[in-house]
């Protein structure tokens, strides 16, 4: 019995460039001046934007601020949004650029160590606790570069198409495939029994 290689999910496929109809309708309403429509967009997409930024910054307060700036920019430029594309991909693109600008302004591109919410334990304790859980993502964060982690997160956690992942990360699709391939190999090497 032989096992044929299964294509990595979505690796060579691209999602059809169609925004979900609910998003398209909300955007159309919003452009007509219906403010509640944008409130609904915020409500629907805040968790994903927040989590994406949180994984970039690893700082809750920064993530909240950047998520807020992201939606303000999105609202301001809503008329330039291409309704045939995915809204969440567009929002994450804005979020990424906003986060990069945020770090450039702070002259601190390297993400901070860990969550520093006041109500939670110290960062060291958090890191230790997270490593004990040792999910695949915890391992990925330890061994992968920021960019490799980001690509894997977009592909397999956010379930973005290859095209959207490349667009959000600001690189070509081929480059995205290579980064994802190398990141998978490193993780597989880590998980392989010695």
């Amino acid at each position, binding site marked *: 019995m*032989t*096992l*044929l*290689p*299964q*294509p*990595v*999910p979505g*690796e*060579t496929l691209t999602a059809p460039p169609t925004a979900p109809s609910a998003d398209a309708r909300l955007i159309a309403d*919003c*452009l007509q*001046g219906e*403010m509640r429509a*944008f*409130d609904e967009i*915020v*409500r629907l997409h*805040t*968790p994903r934007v*927040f*989590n994406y930024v*949180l994984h970039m910054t690893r700082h*809750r307060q920064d993530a*909240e601020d950047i*998520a*807020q700036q992201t*939606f*303000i920019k999105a*609202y*301001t*430029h*809503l*008329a*330039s949004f291409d309704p045939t594309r995915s809204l969440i991909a567009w929002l994450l693109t804005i979020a990424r650029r906003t986060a990069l600008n945020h770090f450039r302004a702070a002259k601190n591109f390297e993400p901070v160590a860990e969550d520093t919410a006041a109500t939670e334990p110290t960062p060291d304790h958090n890191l230790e606790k997270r490593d004990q*859980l040792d*999910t*695949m*993502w*915890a391992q*990925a964060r330890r061994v992968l570069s920021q960019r490799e982690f980001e690509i*894997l*997160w977009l592909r*397999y*956690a956010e*379930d973005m198409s290859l095209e959207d992942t490349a667009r959000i990360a600001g690189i070509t699709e*081929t480059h995205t*495939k*290579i980064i*994802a*391939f190398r990141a*998978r190999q490193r*993780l*597989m*090497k880590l*998980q*392989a*029994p010695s």
Partner: protein
Amino acid sequence: MSSTANPRFVCRVVRLQIALSGNTKKTTRHAANCPDCQAYFRASDALVTGLSRDAAQERQSPPDDLAARIALAVRQSTPRPRHSPTAVWRTLAGVTAVAALSVFLVRQNLPIQPTTTKNRAVAEIHPADVAALVANVDSLRIRLLDSVEPTAEKLATQNPLVQELNSVQADARSALGFLALNFLPTNPDRQTGPKDDSTRS
């Protein structure tokens, strides 16, 4: 899984090729007969499945009031979505290009210091043509602005870009007027009359 740790060169090539371009006949044939590659792809599938599964645990809930705070901040920060500034720039660039082209074409058709009656060029552009050209530029500007924003006329008085556009248009109009006044004959008969007399005498 020693094979995964140190695969053969051909296996590495096949794996990279599949990652970049998907399955082809050759790669499929190799993978079907290579136990190392089969183990590799099995592990790869398990990894991707695991990453997708664990993503839910990795996600953190945003604060409960974050969406409400964002919505409030959006309301306070911007009055309403605005049209892309690139559209305005495109309009400006288009009108400027048309004006520049008009000036260029007018200059191309003007006679250059005629010295004799024989090689004096006959002007073919009349002030009426210039006026029509200016009117065309005007109508083009209005049409472009209307395509960008139905209330463009209303915004035109406030938008600095449109004010700049108007000043460029005014410059172009005055340049055309200047050229028409100085270089276009208003009455060709009157200009050629005296020279014809002198030639005759």
